[in-house]
């Protein structure tokens, strides 16, 4: 093949351009830390990266969902603890009221105390999270139980998504925690009805009803304890999901990194060698360009 000057010039331009492009690509890798930035550079891995990105975005959201669930659960837990304390106090008062040495005035004082326990229990039952009564189900009610102890909520269940196929129930309905209203047999009704009835019985020195009331307090206390247990289990489920997500994020990120990130040491060495080869190309080109018969003619 004849070597013509135009061909040589074209080839040299191509060589220099090629080695410069190679160097630029290596520099880009070092600067961005990514092996590819456009999907077309690696279509298969690019879709993997996209799926992983989506998973990470979702896990991030699941974390937010879990935080909200935790807020509900913790609030419910506090409300139930305080309800439990109030109930225990009411039990103690009811037992004290059985003391035959008490006079009417003392009994009236105990009855007033039991009343106020009932009121405190109702406050606990009306606990809210961001303005929403947590024991009112999915109803748009400001209170779960009104002043007369009537349940204003519904039987809807509030859930939070912890993962694509995992939800957690974060609400307990008022009636299953505080009892369902039963005007005919108030001792087996809501905890508020029951305490009102006991208070009235204490004031009237009706020891039979007070003793029945103590049994009813036991039942209500068991109910509250059960609710606390469920809340504890829910809380554990949320924590478990959080821990799992933390692990998964690390794993997914490691995977993405394996696919997309450059090994920085390797990239820097690659860049240095590309620079060297570019310098060599330039030097060789400049040397070769000056080689001509003209240099040897006098």
């Amino acid at each position: 093949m004849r070597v013509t000057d135009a061909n040589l010039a074209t080839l040299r331009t191509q060589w220099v351009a090629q080695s410069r492009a190679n160097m630029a690509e290596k520099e880009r890798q070092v600067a961005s830390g990514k092996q590819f930035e456009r999907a077309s550079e690696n279509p298969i891995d690019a879709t993997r990266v996209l799926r992983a990105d989506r998973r990470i975005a979702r896990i991030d959201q699941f974390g937010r969902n879990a935080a909200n669930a935790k807020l509900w659960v913790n609030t419910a837990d506090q409300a139930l603890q305080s309800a439990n304390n109030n109930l225990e106090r009411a039990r103690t008062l009811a037992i004290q009221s059985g003391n035959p040495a008490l006079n009417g005035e003392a009994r009236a004082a105990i009855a007033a105390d039991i009343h106020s326990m009932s009121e405190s229990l109702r406050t606990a039952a009306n606990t809210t999270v961001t303005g929403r009564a947590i024991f009112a189900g999915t109803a748009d009610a400001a209170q779960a139980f009104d002043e007369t102890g009537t349940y204003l909520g519904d039987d809807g269940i509030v859930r939070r998504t912890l993962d694509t196929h995992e939800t957690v129930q974060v609400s307990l309905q008022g009636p299953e925690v505080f009892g369902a209203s039963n005007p005919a047999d108030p001792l087996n009704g809501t905890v508020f009805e029951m305490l009102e009835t006991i208070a009235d019985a204490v004031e009237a020195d009706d020891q039979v009803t007070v003793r029945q009331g103590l049994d009813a307090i036991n039942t209500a206390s068991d109910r509250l304890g059960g609710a606390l247990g469920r809340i504890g289990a829910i809380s554990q489920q949320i924590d478990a999901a959080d821990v799992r997500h933390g692990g998964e994020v690390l794993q997914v990120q490691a995977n993405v990194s394996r696919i997309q990130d450059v090994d920085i040491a390797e990239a820097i060495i690659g860049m240095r060698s590309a620079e060297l080869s570019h310098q060599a190309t330039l030097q060789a080109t400049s040397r070769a360009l000056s080689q001509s018969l003209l240099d040897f003619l006098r």
Partner: protein
Amino acid sequence: MSHFAGLQTAVTGLHAHRRRIDIISENIVNVDTPGYHRQKVNLSAIDRSSVGVWTGSRHNTGGVEYESISRMRDAILVNNARVQTSEAEARSAETGVLEQLETIVGGLEEGSLHDQLNELWNAFDDLASAPDDLAMRQGVLQRAETVAQGFTRVTASIDQLRSDQEAAVYDTVGKVNALADQIAALDSEILGTLNTDAHPNSLLDQRDQLVTELAGTVNVQVNELENGQTEVTVDGQLIVSNGRSNHLTVQRTSDPVLGSLGYDRFSVVNASNRELRINSGQLAGALNATQNIIPQQRERIDSLIADLTTQVNALHNGGAGLDGSTGNDFFAVDPLHSGTLLVANDVVNQPEKVAAATAGAGVLDDSMARSLANLAESPTGPTSNFVTAVGELAAKVNTSRTRSDGATAAGERAQQLANSAGGVSLDEELVDLMTAQRSFEASARLVTAIDEMLQTLITSTGRVGR
């Protein structure tokens, strides 16, 4: 044979070698001229019975004469280079369009449609955590608006790209016509020059260069005729013949398939209204982009939009807003402009109508919002479909780029082969120059020698014995 015959022979040498030096100079100064083919003087010994240079009469003398100046051009290599370059131009135009499409659709960059969709699903989950919070509802609507505008921007950009390519079709056909005009004009000139028995090499080079340029724009076939003229055809139809050009025009017709996207069909026809098959060159790239590449991508995005609308609405219709309203649409496609995604009138600017609850459940139920959020990871959900579409397009770009790179490399190689036959090598010319110079000097010395010889005869003859 006359004594002067030697002088005569020497003069033909001076003449021929000076001519060689002229041509070598021409080669040297044109070393970088695009399309220049090196020339070579073909010398031959003068036929002893030929006509004398000075006397005009038949002499029985020898000498050298330049027979012709040939253009060192390998027609097969040149033609091959044109074909390869034409193919490379088409592929590289297509790749350019596909790469632009990839940029428009996006994927891996921050804030891509993929990210926007994820944010929408996450907003639904946030809404599920607080169905009574109007701010959360507003947040969902804002994300939805971003997604809608994102998709609409993509289709609008694709339409813009398509109209750019339409313009490119017109421009390229204009360029083809302009080149055909110039080739035709040169053809007439070449014919004229040949008739005067001169060497039209520079005109031939110019024409070659124009034909090569034409081959880059469209698939041409060139037939070089005996009389020095050319016939240039596209798909068997003459566009240059007998020093005249036939212009091509772009025809815009409506097409049922493309029409559904609001596009027209473009074709290239000649003066007798015959449609030409264009399969290489920039024109082929632009036509393929308008006819296939861009409409296909636009359809793909339209289907993503339709699918997103259907899937979200199917769920949302079964939900209830904070105001108890049910059966509301969430997304809608503009009936007048396919490819325009909107937040449906049912919910736009009415955050209370966004369904977080399933119809019939409590007002503050959150199951619908959670179902909508779960579209995020559904294997057939809108995000998955989008990722699939990104992957498909990326694979197309990748394939096209590989083909284009291959075609470009092949074109460059073919071009170099053609150049290696026709290009100028300075070293070679310098050697030639030295040879010609030496030959010229020798011829000049010949004149001197004969002159001295004659002088001997004139001044010294008849002095024998003096």
